[in-house]
């Protein structure tokens, strides 16, 4: 069986990961701060929503790719997680679409 062994993960390239992690954490904190400030800015509703969605996606991606090592792992892990993430995202989107249709406005909010 041993000859089928694939070399175990390579963690050799992590000389400066400590700094990287700290930097990323700072970055995330900064983005969060910006988010909090943006909501009070006089932008249009759609613009604000877009900004918020984008910034939280960026944070999301930083965490999974850096903190959760996806960047250094086998791409397969990324694929696996993205199957779930994409399907969940799609389902959420579809549900929200269905429920925001005119036909779905509940009587209790009319």
């Amino acid at each position, binding site marked *: *069986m*041993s*000859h*089928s062994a694939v070399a175990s993960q390579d963690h050799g390239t992590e000389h400066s990961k400590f700094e990287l992690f700290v930097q990323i954490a700072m970055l995330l904190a900064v983005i969060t701060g910006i988010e909090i400030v943006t909501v009070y800015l006089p932008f249009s509703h759609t613009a604000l929503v877009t900004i918020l969605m984008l910034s939280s996606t960026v944070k999301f991606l930083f965490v999974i790719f850096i903190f959760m090592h996806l960047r250094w792992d086998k791409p*397969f892990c990324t694929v696996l997680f993205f*199957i*779930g993430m994409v*399907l*969940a995202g*799609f*389902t959420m989107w*579809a*549900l929200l*679409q*269905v429920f925001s*249709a*005119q*036909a*779905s406005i*509940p009587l*209790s*909010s009319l």
Partner: protein
Amino acid sequence: MADAITKSGYTAHDEKITARSSLFYRPQAKTGLMSWLTTVDHKRIGFLYGVFALFFFLVGGVEALLIRIQLAVPNNNFLSAQQYNEMFTMHATTMIFLAIMPLSAAFFNFIMPLQIGARDVAFPRLNAFSLWVFLAGAIIVNLGWFLHDGAPNGGWFGYTPLTTRAFSPNHAIDMWVMGLQLLGVASIAASLNFITTIINMRAPGLTMMRLPVFTWMTLITAFLIVLSFPAITIALVELMMDRSFSTNFFEVSNGGMPILWTHLFWVFGHPEVYILILPGMGIISEILPTFSRKPLFGYPIVVFSGACIGFLGFGVWSHHMFTTGMGTVATAAFAMTTMAIAVPTGVKIFNWIGTIWGGHISMRTPMMFALGFIWLFMFGGFSGIMHSAAPADAQQHNSYFVVAHFHYVLIGGSLFALLAGIHYWFPLMFGRKVSEFWGKLSFWVIFIGFNTTFFPMHFLGLNGMPRRTFTYDPNMGWNNSNFIATIGAFILGVGVTIYFAVMVYTYFKGERVKNDPWDGRTLEWSLPNPVPEYNYRVIPVVHARDAFWYEKQHKEEIAAEHAKLEKAESAHGGIHMPFQSIYPFIASLGILIGGVGVATIDSNPDPKVIVGKKLTVCLIGLGIFLYGVYCWALEGNEGYHLHLDGHDSSDTKH
């Protein structure tokens, strides 16, 4: 089975090990009750899944017969309305969650590791845990039959607000919710395990595009389970919160929307029906090539279409809701995606026909069931397409036309495939073979009984008969079809009885067969039957898609290779075997007790007396569960090494 496995496998154990892990009790019994409760062997677990599933299949079948008796004649009062509602709710819940799914799981467990040349699944104890939690869930769902509150009666999709406390005040629905919740946990845990196993434990050379199709479908099914069960889990949590903590998810007076349940349920529910059919399709894709003595036609595209079905299956849920007034755009979108599913499904049908085309078809029982599957499933698929035309579905929805559709795909599809699979792998599992005569007889009786039962239902539905009605009037024009359907159900019952009687007989007394009786193509047939505990003496190296077929054609090279591998392996320390463990069982027992406590016992209405009966039972359950998990974690995933000399197994210590 106990016998078969014990005899075939390695039985002695290493004393040194016993001493070393004396802190925790590591059971080693290979026979008797303890050996089953503590087993981590995927074959035994698979066998248990199968036994439970078949038992529940009979239970569900008896419920179906009671339904049919009630409907045989108009205005019958064989069952009361309440009993009838319990009957179809439990019939569906039992058949779907306790019969077809675990029967598929039985094959996943038993066959899949063999097909990928593995010695076990990735997490053997987690696998045992899944089994026992499944059983706990099954018990809780069925508990109502024996209690004052009665069995669940909200229909298998438990639409709110009928299932909220206001309209179903007693504990029947609580048991349903709790039971389904546990079944979900069991299914997800098992599926995580299967995915890891298939992805990570393949024999060398077994690339993904060489995987047997059954294994592929196992993988896709497991993904579907892992991704769709969370939706029902959330729905059930919300319902449970509504029932127990008076939240407002489905409480209209505070702005709740019952329609939300419907969506969440079908977000799960539609993938669920593919969870039921894909394993069947996998089995069929194994059987047809074997008995046509030809490789599967268009392997890559069959695999791809399987994945496609799985993926598309997440985008069609609202076709169960065409009549909920979603609005034109949503209805149209879901109608289109639903139709799209016909394409990959059709591709599979075409490729199966392509497989038998030009083959040498040996018409054995498994093959009969497999061909029956194609016919009936295709038929059921067509009525599915009729549903997908949303305006037409406005007439068909919740009528017997739907009942006809889904029994064609569920019985004609899933069940036929599973029955085929039982016949097909029986020799491998038990070393005996079902008599062809009795096998074929049961096939024909089932086939005829099935069509007699469900074909008339198409017309019943179009003639306006709604489903889930415990009675109907004699002047509606439904009498004849209903009566025929009832007769059919009894023919079907006879067929099923023959089938099982023959299986049981064969298990004890059937004709013994040599290895590889069907001239199989996939790896599992290279094993002796019954399969030894460690599966493969030597983990094989895979060179081609139909691995065993290739081996049979390159006997010398393979033999040489085997010898080399064997040497390497024994130098490496022998065969790794995991220890048995009782803790998965104990943890599940805790879950069972806690679950029963939560679901059935009235909490003390007086808030000052908090420590009511309920809390006590729940805490006991929780305690046992935590104890189980704690010991499970601490005992560690250790195991022992096994050395085999020649053909006799023996125990060597280095």
